[in-house]
């Protein structure tokens, strides 16, 4: 219905409602946003004091005493002052002023504020119940300009829905206007929001009314301990602007995934598209909590419970790990708990409002002894619909009559939800999570560990030996001295016992676990294996991807494709020969290809996320060199974005050390423009990962390359 909310200069929201072919605008001048204030220990005299203070404030439209629950654990509502404001978008300003008044007159923390930092558009939907989805499909138009051209403000290479728009700026602008007229899109997906001002300068309005607004300048921020960059944001009347560069979700979950999350969060598309996963979770939780009469706290003041050191230690343990011996294991079954953490949350009712409740004196959480209340937990209600929808989509996906288009749409939605589900556990421990509680994080972990132990004991009792286990997966092989019951049968029994599906993922002909790199203390997470025929057939995979890789170079996003492909080939050699020397012998072929200089530069490109500005890097790193080169070429790259480069000369330190991907695409430095020894080194390391389960290290690989088979053998012997 109301898929886009514009905020007029005078603060009045304008709701855009989809019609059969187009959209209509309706101003809502009567809407008033509100902030809630509670006092320490519910002492109402502070609320009376604040009401007197705020009465003359022209921003304030009305003051009213209401009752709301302060947090999810509160049994009774507390008295709160509801401060209604004239204009959408002044809530934070008012909150800062309330804080300043408080500090002048009372000890800090006398007042707690709620419903302060909500996106104005999200707030509007929450308050009015407006549905942020149109009851038809979103009409979209995709506009893109290559980075290098954008850096020069050149729109001649603009493409509309992937097709080049004309070849001249003038032609491109006319084309955009024609497409907007004909399609009347609701959504503009832009390669960069900078297209909004650039097109406006050329007389092209992207909105359903003339003009545009700058919502925010470009900025750098830190979130979850990572540095991010948010590009400038622009708003056009009546249309949703989605900036591809700043939409993690569009990248990972596609449009169908975005649309689903808009429905779940009740947050309009434009605002949701630029959220992080944490932002999406926050929105879903804020909405669920509001439904339970709990407003969103501004600064979370809830503290950790006092704990003994022993309990703190028990609580600090991470996920389940069962350390395997590095090496190669034959005939291995993999068993996985499906969505373990979210299912623990739902099936066991682990939630901020249930852990360590006051009404039960039980010790439900293993190792920690926290009670778990029997009431329906908040977090289970947040995740339940996501879990149910996801498993329904998986069923549809498996159905014979599912079309390829439908499968793609389902994949996008399945991915969108997967991201939210994998993040929900970590988010509980995040210090700014509005409804997060550290004890919930600890309890989820403790219950999950217990379930893994239950599963481990069950398979062992059925004659299997566990060769590796980590977080939610077990790898088991037949104990040669005993008879086995079918592993699928055991998994089904565990599923019945614990209420969470333990799935038989498949059988490997062999799995190789790499030893730890140095004594890092981390669990073994690097392995590769070959699925058995029946497992390959069952998954519908092709013979080419019958291998599973985890943690090794072939799987790392930052690996050059040439190195990744060579490693996959080395694994195939490993499979055929089961002999380290044969694998290293095979490595020679790849080294020769590299040294001939005949590798396409695109296959050598390394993609890296930038965490700092060029001048903030200590020492000369490749990322720094790439940033300097980008700057020389007039291309802005900010922390949080990524750079893609080919290493040209690793001995140099300045911008000559690398070439950016688009330079080599242009052919500007084709022909021997890469640092052979740098990539040779990467190949050797990728090879080491493959032979390490057989006991070889990098030194042995290098000695073998230098001296050949006999020399290496003799070095073993004597």
């Amino acid at each position, binding site marked *: 219905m109301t898929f886009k909310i514009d905020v007029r200069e005078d603060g009045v929201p304008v709701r855009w409602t989809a019609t059969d072919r187009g959209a209509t605008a309706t101003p809502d001048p009567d809407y008033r946003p509100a902030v809630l204030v509670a006092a320490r220990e519910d002492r109402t005299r502070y609320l009376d004091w604040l009401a007197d203070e705020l009465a003359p404030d022209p921003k304030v439209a009305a003051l009213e005493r209401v009752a709301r629950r302060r947090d999810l654990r509160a049994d009774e509502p507390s008295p709160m002052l509801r401060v209604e404001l004239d204009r959408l978008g002044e809530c934070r300003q008012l909150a800062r002023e309330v804080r300043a008044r408080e500090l002048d007159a009372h000890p800090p923390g006398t007042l707690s504020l709620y419903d302060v930092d909500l996106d104005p558009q999200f707030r509007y939907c929450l308050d009015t119940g407006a549905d942020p989805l149109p009851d038809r499909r979103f009409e979209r138009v995709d506009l893109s300009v290559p980075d290098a051209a954008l850096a020069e403000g050149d729109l001649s290479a603009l493409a509309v829905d992937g097709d080049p728009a004309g070849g001249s700026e003038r032609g491109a602008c006319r084309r955009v206007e024609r497409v907007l007229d004909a399609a009347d899109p609701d959504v503009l997906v832009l390669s960069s929001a900078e297209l909004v001002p650039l097109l406006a300068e050329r007389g092209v309005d992207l909105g359903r009314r003339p003009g545009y607004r700058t919502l925010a300048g470009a900025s750098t921020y830190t979130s979850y301990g990572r540095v991010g960059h948010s590009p400038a944001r622009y708003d056009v009347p009546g249309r949703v602007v989605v900036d591809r560069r700043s939409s993690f979700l569009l990248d990972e979950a596609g449009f169908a995934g975005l649309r689903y999350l808009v429905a779940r969060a009740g947050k309009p598309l434009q605002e949701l598209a630029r959220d992080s996963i944490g932002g999406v979770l926050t929105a879903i939780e804020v909405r669920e909590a509001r439904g339970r009469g709990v407003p969103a706290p501004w600064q*979370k*003041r809830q503290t950790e419970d006092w704990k003994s050191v022993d309990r*703190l230690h028990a609580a600090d343990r991470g996920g389940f790990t069962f350390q395997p011996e590095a090496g190669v294991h034959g005939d291995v079954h993999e068993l996985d708990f499906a969505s373990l953490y979210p299912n623990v949350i739902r099936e066991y009712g682990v939630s901020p409002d249930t852990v360590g409740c006051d009404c039960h004196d039980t010790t439900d959480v293993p190792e920690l002894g926290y009670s778990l209340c029997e009431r329906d937990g908040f977090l289970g209600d947040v995740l339940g619909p996501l879990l149910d929808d996801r498993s329904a989509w998986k069923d549809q996906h498996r159905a014979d009559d599912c079309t390829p288009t439908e499968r793609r749409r389902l994949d996008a939605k399945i991915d969108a939800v997967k991201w939210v589900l994998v993040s929900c556990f970590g988010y509980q421990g995040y210090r700014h999570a509005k409804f997060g509680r550290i004890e919930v994080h600890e309890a989820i972990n403790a219950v999950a560990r217990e379930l893994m132990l239950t599963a481990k004991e069950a398979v062992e009792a059925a004659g299997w030996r566990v060769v590796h286990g980590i977080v939610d997966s077990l790898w088991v092989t037949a104990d040669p001295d005993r008879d086995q019951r079918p592993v699928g049968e055991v998994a089904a029994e565990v599923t019945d016992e614990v209420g969470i599906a333990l799935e038989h993922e498949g059988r490997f002909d062999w799995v190789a676990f790499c030893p730890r790199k140095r004594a890092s203390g981390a669990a073994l997470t690097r392995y590769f294996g070959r699925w058995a025929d029946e497992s390959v057939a069952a998954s519908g995979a092709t013979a080419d991807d019958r291998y599973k890789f985890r943690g090794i170079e072939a799987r790392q996003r930052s690996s050059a494709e040439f190195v990744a492909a060579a490693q996959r080939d080395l694994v195939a050699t490993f499979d055929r020969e089961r002999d380290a020397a044969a694998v290293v012998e095979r490595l020679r072929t790849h080294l020769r290809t590299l040294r001939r200089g005949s590798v396409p530069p695109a296959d050598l490109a390394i993609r890296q996320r930038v965490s700092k500005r060029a001048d903030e890097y200590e020492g000369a790193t490749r990322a720094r060199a790439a940033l300097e080169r980008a700057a020389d070429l007039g291309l802005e790259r900010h922390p949080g974005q990524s750079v893609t480069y080919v290493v040209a000369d690793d001995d140099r330190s300045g911008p000559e050390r690398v070439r950016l991907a688009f330079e080599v695409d242009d052919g500007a430095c084709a022909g021997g423009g890469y640092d052979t020894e740098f990539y040779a080194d990467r190949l050797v390391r990728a090879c080491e990962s493959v032979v390490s389960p057989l006991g070889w290290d990098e030194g042995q690989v290098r000695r073998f390359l230098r001296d050949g088979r006999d020399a290496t053998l003799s070095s073993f012997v004597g």
Partner: protein
Amino acid sequence: MTDQLPTLDPEVTYLDASDAPAALYRVVVEHLADERGPACWVDARNRGAPAALYDHLGRRACRSLAVARAFTGYQHYELVRSLPGTLRATASLVVAPALAAPYADPDVPDHEADAMVAAVLELLDAVSTAVDVPVLVTADADPYAADVRRAADRVLDATATRMGLRVDGDGVRVDGYWDATGFQTTVPYWVDRCGAVGCRGVERPVAPAAVPGV
């Protein structure tokens, strides 16, 4: 050897451990060797990580500790405010390492941080008097370190020397040295003294009225 070490009195003691981070744990373990009551550790910046506490204090001394961690300035403030209601009258020590660090984080606006740090320093002073308990604080190199030092009743400076750890300051008559074995030899002593002391729960809250501004 223990008689050479500074004893903590019911006041706020600032320990400058910037040159010798382990000094915090040493002073705590020595104090717990002499005192029976439970101790509260208001943690910041992970100084109270279980591994560090086990390493430096030993498992049994840890049993007299109750720890709560502050991940933001707001949480730290609330933890300190909760002390009068949490501490038993028998409490033997309050420890607040990296006291002002969470307030210096960018997510707390400066004027709020200033006010909260000032209030926390007053509160700790009041707690030490009202509950008659020593309060030991340290500070990181943050903008509030000087305020924390100035507000303390007593200042101790820890230095790591070739001979071991040295603590100088008001009222330390003899500079205390711990060598590598000094810590070890004290272990049986405080295990004997404090081994069985529990530290959880609120036995007899101190009247909140004793603390101004609460």
